[in-house]
Structure formats: C-alpha cells, structure tokens
C-alpha cells in the first residue's frame, strides 16, 4: 500500500479507523532518511496497516500536538487512539511488534 503524507487537515480523519503507523520525519535528519525505506518496505508488506508520514518541518502544529522532541518518532494508532510510540530508529520487526 502507498504511504500517505499527513497534514493538520487530514490527520484526524486518516487515523480514525484501523491500525495506522505514523512516521514523524524531516529532510534535515539523517536517521530519518534511514527510517524511511524501512517504513516504505513495511507498507509494501502490510496491506492491513495504513502507513503515513508527517514532515515536522511542514506540519509544526502536528509536531507540537504530539510533543515530538526527537526524530524519527513512530506512532501507532488503533481506531484513533495512540497505541505505541517509539523514538529513534526502528527496524521492520520492531514496527511489526508495535502494530500488534
């Protein structure tokens, strides 16, 4: 499944149902560039999870709302509720574990 770019406008609607993985990132962040292909690969292999990204530079209100203090940060929402959060790089297995 393709990865959705989230904005303040479409965020709540997108995370409202099912399992949603959100990758908070920015272009200036080296580790985020490493997280990105891992998240993309996860999206390809997991059609049951909606996979999204938030560019914290372009979406400062979302970054502030979720208290993002370090990137990459990954969050998993289940039916709109925050289920898991990790700060720093996560491998594919860890993401799978987070989505359980």
């Amino acid at each position, binding site marked *: 499944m393709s990865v959705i770019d989230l904005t303040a406008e479409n965020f709540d609607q997108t995370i409202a149902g099912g399992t949603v993985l959100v990758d908070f990132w920015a272009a200036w962040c*080296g580790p985020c*560039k*490493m997280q990105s292909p891992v998240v993309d690969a996860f999206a390809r292999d997991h059609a049951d999870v909606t996979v999204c990204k938030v560019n914290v530079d372009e979406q400062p209100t979302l970054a502030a709302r979720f208290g993002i*203090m370090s990137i990459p940060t990954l969050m998993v929402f289940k039916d709109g509720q925050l289920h898991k959060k990790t700060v*720093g790089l996560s491998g594919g297995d860890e993401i799978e574990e987070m989505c359980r």
Partner: protein
Amino acid sequence: MDGGNWDILILGAGPAGISAALTAHARGRRALVLSGDPMATPLAKAPAIHNYPGLPGMSGRELLSAMLAGLERQGVRRVTGRVTAVMPFDGSFMVSAEQDVFQAGSLILAAGAQQSLKPLPGEAEYLGRGVSYCATCDGMLYRGRTVAVLCLGAQAEEDADLLQSIGCSVLRFGRAQAKDAQIIGTDRVTGLVCGGQEHAVDGVFVLRDAVAADVLLPGLAMEGGHIAVDGDMGTSVPGVFAAGDCTGRPYQIARAVGQGNIAALAADRYLKEREK
C-alpha cells in the same frame, strides 16, 4: 542513499581504521572511512612513540599524518562526520552521519576507546524526551526554546553555534562543568542541574565525539565497556567487525593496526560468502 553505497564502511580514522581501509582497498573492496577529526584524538597528543616498529620517536601527530597520507595515496576516500545511527536493513547496513546516509555491505567499528562515554544521570531516561545526541536532527524542534548543550566533543561548539543560529536559546557547558551534571524532568526534560545550580531548559544536547557503540547499534554485545569480538574481529552482529582500542586493552598502535588488518580480511570473506 546520498552518502553512497560501499562494500565496507569503516568508522574511525585511527591506526585500526586506516589499517582496515588499506587492506580492504587492497582486496579490491570499495571502502570508505567515516570519522571525526583524527587530530582531535588522544593519539594525536602523544609527544613521542617508541614502541611502534620502524618509526622510532615519531609524535602521534606525525604518525597519524603519515598514515592518513598513505590512505590518500592509495585513493581511499575519507569523509568527516559524526555517526549518529546505524541500522541493518535488507542485508546491508545504513549509517547516518550529519545529514547524509551511507550504505554498506559490511561495517568495521574502529572509533577508539570509549572511556569518556559514561552516561549522565537522567540521560538514558530522557533520551528522546528532551535529551538528544544530534543537533542537526532535532535542533529545529527546539526553535525558540532554551536548551543546554554539553560540549563534550571536538565538534560540539560548532553544533551549539548551529542551534543558536536556528533560534534556540543556548546554555553551553564544558567538559569540566558537565562532570557532575544531572538531567531532570517530569515526563520530559525540564532542567539541568550543574554545579549545584538548576537551569530550566526544554532540551539537553549531549554532544560527544562518538555515540556509545551499543547505543549506535542496539544488540551489539559489549564486554567490560569494550566491543566483544572473536578471533576474526567479528562482533555479535553478523557483518559487523571491530578493531583497535574499542575492542579492549592494551591501547597500543601495534595491536590496533593488526586488528584492523584482520577485521578487513574477515569483512572481505563475509562479503564473498554473501556474493556466492
């Protein structure tokens, strides 16, 4: 990847890293050395070295310069940068340094002894909740806020300048001040206690020359503060080798050079096995 794809990526440009790079190159491997400033290392401060064969009485700086010149003469590339993260992915490794990401089939860790990497009280607890190791990565998230910068590495002042330039209010603390520093907070960092005085801050940037190896690469087995290695300089992570002072005592150039050589040969064999 913007930092390029390599066969063997060597982290560290001391005697172990340089030796590993020369051997990897001689084996026809595309090798890249990624390191901080080699002249900011303890070896560069040694006034005279008498127990390294063939080069009696050379200073550490002279010896390092000669080794680096040899590396350059062979056409092996070296890039300056502080490594902030390492991750295995898809049968290879991704390594980020500053804003670039490098990819390699095998890694050789040769970043020197890590005795100064003891974490501060509160550091691990608040990592990602106000504690950061990477000004380039997280600086923008602290724009308009007050941050403490613990300048524990050669590049730290530069990073503190960067934080200031993007609009952070920066309180700088040197090595001596940071000795008894303690990071405090609630669910996130609220302050830094230093010299008995509490400073209210939203973030603490702990900027050392290197991130501890087992933080860099979770799951890497350590032994008494050093990276655990086998006879072929292999670590607990397949494809990752280590050489030099980071693997233990004695902290000697001769040992580092030998281990660098063994590590590069082992990395070459590892890649050959995978290429089959």
